């Protein structure tokens, strides 16, 4: 396996792997799974936020939210393109999403119930996503790393916008402040679960780290997220719904409670509050749009056919 050794050496040396270069089959498969799952998350992620576009409270907020959801579709596009460089088509990936074979981030199976949820998603969900994604800008697969550079820039913008929504609510009427607190109560634990279960023992994770397509342990990222978020909540005047949360001087970080992993696995298993609706919405968009995609293909073929004979003549 000199090829594999050489491959690993290049990765260890911090070099980027590019599409046409040799790579182990498992590396390719792992990346396809990871990138397409990430792409699907962007696409499905349009739905909970899109749910409030028509009800955004001001024109400015409406415009910002529209732009954000549009960015997410754009991220989906970059990521599908990155995955396509590994030899899978976008339609295949959609097929996996619609059949339930491919996953997307479980966080999007929670409902957006108030306008404050739009703030909380930006602050917490995008915040957690960034924490996962920033290291990926330096990951070993070139197209993925480059997509992440663009995505991270926009995500941090989104996070600030979410925080801004909450800042305004927390400085608003008592009802608005309560709305913000309620959103934090509902989104806090699902956000912590975004980093996945404790992965100390995971062989899977070890291989991904060796390949430099995962850089930090789930627990380390979760700790980092908590430590970053606690002072922000304090700034907002909101209470994090965790009685076990406290500063641990010794470790220089916060101690915090254990998320309800039973709930996590239920949501993964399809029993979250919105799993069925999200998938149904995506399937419906796809099925209802078949005629549209077919028409564009037919037009392109007719057009090509019309031009070819002329060119040949």
């Amino acid at each position, binding site marked *: 396996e000199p090829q594999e050794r050489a491959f690993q050496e290049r990765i260890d040396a911090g070099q980027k792997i590019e599409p046409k270069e040799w790579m182990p089959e498992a590396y390719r498969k792992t990346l396809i799974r990871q990138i397409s799952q990430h792409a699907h998350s962007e696409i499905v992620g349009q739905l909970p936020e899109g749910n409030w*576009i028509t009800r955004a409270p001001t024109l400015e907020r409406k415009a910002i939210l529209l732009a954000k959801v549009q960015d997410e579709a754009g991220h989906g596009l970059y990521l599908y393109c990155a995955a396509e460089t590994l030899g899978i088509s976008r339609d295949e990936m959609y097929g996996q999403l619609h059949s339930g074979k491919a996953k997307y981030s479980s966080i999007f199976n929670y409902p957006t119930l108030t306008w404050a949820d739009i703030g909380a998603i930006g602050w917490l969900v995008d915040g957690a996503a960034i924490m996962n994604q920033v290291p990926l800008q330096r990951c070993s697969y070139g197209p993925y790393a480059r997509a992440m550079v663009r995505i991270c820039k926009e995500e941090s913008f989104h996070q600030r916008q979410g925080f801004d929504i909450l800042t305004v609510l927390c400085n608003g009427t008592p009802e608005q402040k309560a709305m913000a607190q309620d959103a934090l109560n509902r989104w806090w634990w699902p956000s912590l679960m975004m980093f996945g279960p404790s992965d100390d023992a995971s062989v899977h994770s070890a291989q991904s780290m060796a390949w430099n397509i995962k850089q930090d342990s789930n627990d380390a990222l979760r700790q980092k997220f908590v430590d970053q978020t606690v002072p922000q909540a304090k700034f907002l005047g909101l209470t994090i719904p965790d009685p076990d949360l406290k500063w641990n001087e010794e470790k220089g970080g916060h101690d915090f409670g254990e998320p309800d992993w039973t709930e996590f696995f239920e949501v993964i298993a399809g029993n979250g509050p919105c799993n069925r609706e999200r998938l149904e919405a995506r399937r419906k968009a796809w099925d209802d749009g078949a005629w549209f995609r077919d028409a564009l293909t037919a037009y392109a073929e007719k057009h090509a056919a019309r031009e070819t004979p002329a060119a040949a003549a």
Partner: protein
Amino acid sequence: MGVTSAAIAEFATRMGDNCLILGHRDSEWCGHSPALEEDIALANTALDHVGQAQLWLGLACEIEGRGKTADTLAFLRDASGYRNLLLVEQPNGDFGRTIMRQFLFDAWHLPMLKALINSSDKRIAEIAEKASKEVAYHLERSTDLVVRLGDGTRESQARMQTALDFLWPYTGEMFLGDALDDELEAAGIAPAPASLRPAWDQHVGRTLAEATLKAPDKSYAQKGGKRGVHSEHLGFILAEMQFLQRAYPGAKW
């Protein structure tokens, strides 16, 4: 110049309401359209329209001078206060109808804005200048899609023809002038609605021909939007759009 500010404010409201309501309809597609590229493009169109609405409604408020903002107008008027064309409030239907509605509107919107660039009112000219660049792109895109979907498959052609037949009665209103339009035209502030018809007819005619679609012969114009008499749909749009501002009066967001 004999034109009252009230007439200019009303005109700006009409323009702004068209953008706001069409933007709202377009935004309903977010995450539900037939292709990722369409999600992006339609969100972009919606975004442009919301921005244009802010400018036009902002101008209406500025002229009125009573401390209202574009948000006040958007979120605190009931349906009878809205001045948009009936065309833009029609339900999305399938994606083909949404594209057709956009096309029929864009084909009017662009000549309107181009004429307004020469408005004797500088503020109007400035908004038109900015908006016309965005709308030129909208029209390019919706024209292209109408052609490709019309001249696509048998099914897509049928869908686009159905969409066209459905929407056609709402196009006449774009070219019907009233006393306000007369007043604004006389003052060189806005074109007579009827004057936009030839450009629209030409562009729409050429596009439909290329798309292998046929405009209906008859054209009884459904009208009322410009004077606040809408279809039953607008009330539902507003109930949804205005909920937060209505439910939490006076709150800042």
